[in-house]
């Protein structure tokens, strides 16, 4: 038999023999893949080079230093139309981060709240939340953004008759005006105290855990941490003479003056992203809590733990393991969806460097490269933070 097999192999030639061997075949396939990939890359890079040369454009990032010549209404840092594209991009990054961070916070709070109500024994409340979740989830987020923007602009009053909430908050179709914090000279001490407090709390809880592991003695970690993180900065704040003032907006004849305006674009984007993502988070939370076997609750009651501790020490830690990975991807989705800002004219990364700057300078290649790199690194950072957290709470199997 073997001689027959050998003879057919010889007839096929050496190439065919290589192809019939599993190991050598996998090497050949990989070499071919690499060759095709590089040929493709060379092809498009060559095309791009010839095309750019033909219309006389190079590939350089010098344009970033030129004046941007456009205005941005929501700007967390100093910016005017004479600032460079570089600075416009920075404003865009900050705006994206701002809406992402605020959105993640609000979406998490709303989502956990809705998820818990969805599980509540109350039939009506759980049905209401179910209907809301199903409706919101099945409608595109861009539609939510446009709808909320439409409501903010069309339904809210003109600044002249803005809705006045205790002379501190003003709600109008030009934005939501909150008091503007004016920072005094010594305020940095409070910030230092805040971070010292966090470091102290971390140290204290580590020591408490070590103590409990060694002797079984429990320490009041929650109160001590609260005292360190909140109490210490408040004391420093009071001692340094309260170097922070809140300047509320005042009603002028035509417009609101002062204060910190949250523009309608920001508000609609923020609310729409938060509500949309919250509905997904609510379902994740519900699934996570339901995934914990009811026997765990019963066992915990049997051990004599009260309801609250059962929830905190038994159910939630196990539910979190199921919740965290999908929650992570929802946070990423929210961050990426914030790029829809361009539909309502909120100047985020895509709005500034990928939008107006691109149109003004005509440098599509450079601008789009920057946009892609920025979003990629943002996604990588968020997912690595969440992975780190995920690893921390993962089940330690012996």
């Amino acid at each position: 038999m073997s001689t027959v097999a050998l003879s057919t192999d010889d007839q096929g030639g050496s190439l065919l023999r290589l192809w019939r061997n599993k190991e050598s075949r996998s090497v050949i396939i990989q070499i071919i893949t690499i060759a095709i990939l590089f040929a493709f890359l060379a092809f498009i890079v060559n095309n791009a080079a010839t095309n750019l040369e033909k219309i006389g454009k190079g590939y350089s990032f010098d344009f970033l230093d030129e004046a941007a010549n456009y205005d941005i209404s929501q700007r967390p840092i100093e910016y005017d139309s004479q600032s460079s594209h570089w600075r416009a991009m920075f404003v865009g990054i900050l705006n994206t981060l701002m809406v992402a961070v605020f959105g993640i916070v609000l979406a998490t709070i709303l989502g956990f709240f809705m998820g818990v109500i969805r599980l509540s024994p109350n039939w009506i409340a759980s049905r209401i939340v179910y209907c809301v979740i199903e409706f919101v989830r099945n409608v595109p987020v861009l539609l939510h953004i446009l709808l909320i923007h439409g409501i903010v602009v069309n339904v809210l009053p003109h600044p002249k008759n803005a809705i006045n909430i205790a002379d501190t908050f003003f709600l109008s179709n030009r934005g939501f005006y909150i008091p503007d914090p004016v920072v005094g000279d010594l305020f940095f001490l409070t910030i230092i105290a805040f971070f010292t407090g966090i470091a102290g709390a971390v140290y204290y809880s580590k020591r408490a855990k070590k103590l409990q592991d060694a002797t079984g003695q429990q320490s009041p970690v929650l109160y001590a941490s609260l005292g360190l993180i909140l109490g210490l900065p408040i004391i420093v704040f009071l001692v340094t003479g309260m170097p922070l003032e809140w300047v509320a907006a005042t009603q002028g004849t035509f417009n609101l003056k002062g204060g910190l305006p949250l523009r309608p674009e920001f508000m609609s984007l923020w609310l729409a992203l938060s509500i949309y993502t919250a509905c997904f988070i609510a379902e994740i939370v519900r699934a996570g809590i339901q995934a914990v076997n009811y026997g765990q609750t019963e066992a915990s009651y049997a051990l004599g733990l009260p309801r609250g501790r059962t929830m905190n020490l038994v159910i939630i830690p196990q539910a979190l393991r199921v919740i965290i990975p999908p929650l992570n991807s929802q946070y990423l989705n929210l961050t990426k969806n914030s790029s829809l800002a361009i539909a309502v004219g909120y100047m985020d990364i895509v709005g500034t460097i990928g939008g107006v700057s691109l149109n003004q300078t005509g440098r599509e290649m450079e601008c789009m490269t920057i946009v892609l790199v920025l979003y990629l690194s943002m996604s990588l950072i968020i997912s690595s933070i969440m992975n780190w957290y995920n690893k921390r709470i993962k089940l330690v199997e012996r």
Partner: protein
Amino acid sequence: MTINTDTALETGKFAPGTHPSLPPPPGTSGPARWMKDNLFSSVSNTILTIVSVYVIYLVISKAGAWLFWDAVVNADSREGCRAVGTGACWAIVVANFNKSIYGFYPEAERWRLNLDFILLFVALGPILFDKFPARKNMLWFSVAYPFLSIWLILGGWGLEPVDTALFGGVMLTLIIGVTGISFSLPLGILLALGRYSNLPVMRMVCTMFIEFIRGVPLIALLFVASTMLNYFLPPGVEFDLLLRVLIMVTLFSAAYLAEVIRGGLQSLPKGQFEAADAMGLKYWQAMRLIVLPQALKVSIPGIVNTFIGLYKDTTLVLIIGLLDVLGIMKSTLANPAWNGLAEEAYLYTAVFFFISCFAMSRYSLYLENKLHTGHKR
């Protein structure tokens, strides 16, 4: 031997096992008990019930009045609506209904879209439901449908050719959605297999592609498609914008699908792969006959979710200037006659998307139940 129950009830004597069932004790069943258990079981629960009922009352009285009772259907502009009633001005939807469905497609040729739409369901039926009459033969129609559909929509060969720039509305949404869905599934499967394969180079290439696509927002990719893609083509070659968008949408959802399917692949016990090898199956045979049927079954909910996501993401094309159904309604708001009716225009679009996406998610539930061949716990 039967005992007369009536006489037994009267005398109060029953033979063993013949006593008729008695009604449950009062207060342990019926609507009153249900309400006590589900709505008023504790103080906090009672408060929640009252708040919820109040919310429902508010929604029905306020939103109901605005949506239906005070709404205006027939008017020629916003002012016309306001003159008649205080509620929603549905006239904007009535006046732009055809445009929101067909976009700018020539009116004389719209029968082609209607026909195509009906044929879409004829083609989908045998794929979606296995009890479809004459399924085997009808599947051949499903295979031919894409070509038939391209011919009907684009024209040529005896039909009036229509430029893609005239596409819009629901029709464009469906074109992008259906094309994206049907092309991204095979591509996603290939990417998932590549990422899960034993060949390091294959794995690396697929992983890099998937992570790159998943790391950037779709809108950035669409901008790449609309501004940058032409630079990468040989000089003189130009792609239609719609085609470029279709490619990007397909690649985008293929990367997400690949991750979903990889989850399914990872959930398979290693023994399945080894058993396939032991049977002497070649790679593609093993994948086709043993691995993929199981992996795909596990990942159905995720796959349908990705499809729903893709379908919703088709709205993003309005940002690069293609007018899908949302884009059409948004553009009608720029018309002075309908200026300021954003709520009505967008709610109409929202209802359209809700119906189609909800139907998809229900179908996914049906499929999950149908394919559930394991032990149900």
